[in-house]
């Protein structure tokens, strides 16, 4: 399957009374985006208000509480559309051509749970830890209608973000991309014939599915109701997987992370040179032991069935999913398939504690995204998009995290994407 991505560089966003992309600037009419967002019944029923703001790299701006980050894209050739099974119809994506508004994102903000949303600082020390400080962000701050059930509200805000991204992505349809790249993996036999001497490598992509606001969706299906299965890597790149998560901000895989999965990108970079990138294996992180056993059995079974030599395993979340990570790794290694895993650490604020909730000697090749418990001080920002009301209670904060001058003392946990377990960042620990 072959996918072409046409990258349109977005260097600036401006509010305007028309909507267009011109010379690297996105001009956007907030009312038009809002109208499109509100065409959805759930949004209409549960989202009282949606206000837009713009945050640019280097500005003294803090966005919080952040729910999701989404890259606007549009399918211009080939089957399917953006976010299949959720926004577009469920046709298989990952082939044809998709235009990407690169350098920007839609950020959804506003309280969902309160504990489980994050902070994005556009400048200062906090900006070093989140990849989203480098993007021009169109921020949509949502407020719930009174008395709404949290689960309904989460779904509504999730859909609202995806709809906003779809609307903005559409503006790139007829724009000539600044750069076009193509990505292709092959059928099993075809791949072996093409690269007879290269090791066969796949990506075991663990999806957060602990349930009840800890969910990921694949073609619109709740991942906790899925069996471990196979995707073409280009499907992931083309919006097949979206985030529906309220977990600690630092190692939540936002929809943007799925769209720009760095493991997929870096395996493609070596594809046909040092390795044969066979496919992605997606597997869930359910809470019941039977589910964990079944899913990790299936991961290992598929690795064997595909005659793989090695896999990279990435995780989402921590604690409970550490057991899935270790079960996957152990069983895959026992099949004779070599593993490298990507995780992050909860080693305590002093760094002295054991970092994972589960371990096995077979997990001997580990890449870490850093210790999420490490404490950071975020200086006050001139402008806050959203509200600072939840800073003391979000995961990684403590009573008194928000100081009188507006500065925040908290663990890295509070920063969206800080210790990402797909290996999106350079942060690490020893």
């Amino acid at each position: 399957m072959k996918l072409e991505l046409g990258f349109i560089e977005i260097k600036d966003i401006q509010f305007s009374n028309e909507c267009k992309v011109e010379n690297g600037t996105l001009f956007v009419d907030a009312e038009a985006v809002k109208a499109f967002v509100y065409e959805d019944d759930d949004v209409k029923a549960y989202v009282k208000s949606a206000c837009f703001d713009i945050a640019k790299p280097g500005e003294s701006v803090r966005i919080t509480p952040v729910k999701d980050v989404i890259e606007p894209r549009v399918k211009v050739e080939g089957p399917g559309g953006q976010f299949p099974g959720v926004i577009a119809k469920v046709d298989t994506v990952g082939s044809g051509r998709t235009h990407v508004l690169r350098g920007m994102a839609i950020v959804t903000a506003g309280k969902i749970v309160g504990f489980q949303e994050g902070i994005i600082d556009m400048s200062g020390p906090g900006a070093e830890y989140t990849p989203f400080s480098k993007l021009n962000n169109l921020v949509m701050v949502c407020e719930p209608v009174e008395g709404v059930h949290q689960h309904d509200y989460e779904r509504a805000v999730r859909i609202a973000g995806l709809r906003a991204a779809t609307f903005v992505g559409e503006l790139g349809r007829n724009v000539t991309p600044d750069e076009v790249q193509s990505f292709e993996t092959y059928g099993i036999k075809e791949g072996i014939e093409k690269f007879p001497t290269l090791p066969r490598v796949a990506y075991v992509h663990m999806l957060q599915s602990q349930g009840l606001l800890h969910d990921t969706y694949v073609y619109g299906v709740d991942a906790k109701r899925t069996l471990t299965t196979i995707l073409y890597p280009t499907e992931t790149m083309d919006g097949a997987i979206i985030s529906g998560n309220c977990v600690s901000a630092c190692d939540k895989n936002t929809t943007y992370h799925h769209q720009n999965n760095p493991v997929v990108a870096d395996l493609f970079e070596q594809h046909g040179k040092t390795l044969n990138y066979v496919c992605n294996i997606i597997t869930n992180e359910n809470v019941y032991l039977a589910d964990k056993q079944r899913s990790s059995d299936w991961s290992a079974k598929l690795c064997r069935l595909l005659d793989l030599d090695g896999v990279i395993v990435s995780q989402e979340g921590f604690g409970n999913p550490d057991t899935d990570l270790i079960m996957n790794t152990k069983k895959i290694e026992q099949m004779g398939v070599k593993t490298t895993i990507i995780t992050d650490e909860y080693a305590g604020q002093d760094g002295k504690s054991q970092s994972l909730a589960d371990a096995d000697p077979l997990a001997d090749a580990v890449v870490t995204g850093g210790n999420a418990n490490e404490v950071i001080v975020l200086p006050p920002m001139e402008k806050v998009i959203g509200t600072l009301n939840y800073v003391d209670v979000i995961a990684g904060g403590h009573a008194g995290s928000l100081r009188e001058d507006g500065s925040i003392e908290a663990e890295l946990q509070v920063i969206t994407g800080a210790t990402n377990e797909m290996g999106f960042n350079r942060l690490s620990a020893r």
Partner: protein
Amino acid sequence: MSYRVVHYINQFFANIGGEEMAHVAPELREGFVGPGLAFNQSWKGEAEIVATVVCGDSHFAEHEKEAQEQILAWVKELNPDLFIAGPAFNAGRYGYACATIANAVKEQLGIKVLTGMYEENPGADLKDKILIVPTANSAAGMRKAAPAMAKLALKLMKGEKLGASCEDNYMPNGIRVNFFEKERGSKRAVKMLLNKLADKPFVTEYPMPSFDRVAPNPAVKDLSKATIALCTSGGIVPKGNPDHIESSSASHYGEYSIAGVEALCEATHETAHGGYDPVYANADANRVLPVDVMREFEREGKIGKLHDLFYTTVGNGTAVASAKKFAAEYAQKLLQAGVNAVIMTST
């Protein structure tokens, strides 16, 4: 003014002799001796060795207490900014002496210390207590070892923040420190996998810890006479979370009374836990801390008594070391209160 350093070396590096002279007792010399020159050169005047302690390896091993007392007395008197020992490379007794005396200076005198040796030197067992720079396994590695140790020594003397072990070149000491790598994690993972596939060497960024396995206690013989306590890492607290237990990475636990409480309810209890969807726990906290069922058992005589207090914290992102500390403390309280068994719920 330059920083003042005291250096510890053995008889061999002091040019007294080899194994045949390993019995020599400690002596104090002014200024640098032998490898101390290399340190002084690296420091370029910013720091200087003011005195050198020379001690035979056998002497230290056989008269550890006396040798240590003598050396500590000298170092105390000199009160340097740093005490540096070795490097000992793979010399076992020398490495042991360097690590032991450095640890004693640190612990007893509160002076900063540093040593260097080969990773498999028995002295490296103390790497969690003192900073040890890894070196080659023979003195041929001096040219690299001396500047490496000198660099870290200067950083310590200046009181600069210590980076990660791989950045500042010391043996991993069990304290995880964040830093920015040159490449993103996914790229490092691909490289690591390619090395592993080709049977080439690779270094894991997190060596797996060994786990503390707890053997279960024998079963309670007669539940109908037992006092049972409820404990949880699911964050159930009185409404409003009066002790501000953190939603993640909890710094403390709570002790709350349920004396006379038939069941928890939405008006009285909630969860402080930030790692799971709180909706159902807030609506009915018995789902996490089953007070209602325990009261039923109490009435039916299945258990003797439900303990009047429950202990609670948030397990989410909480360091294992913290959890262990909390439990060690409240386990004593439970024992004192005559509790026979505990039901610990997690989420």
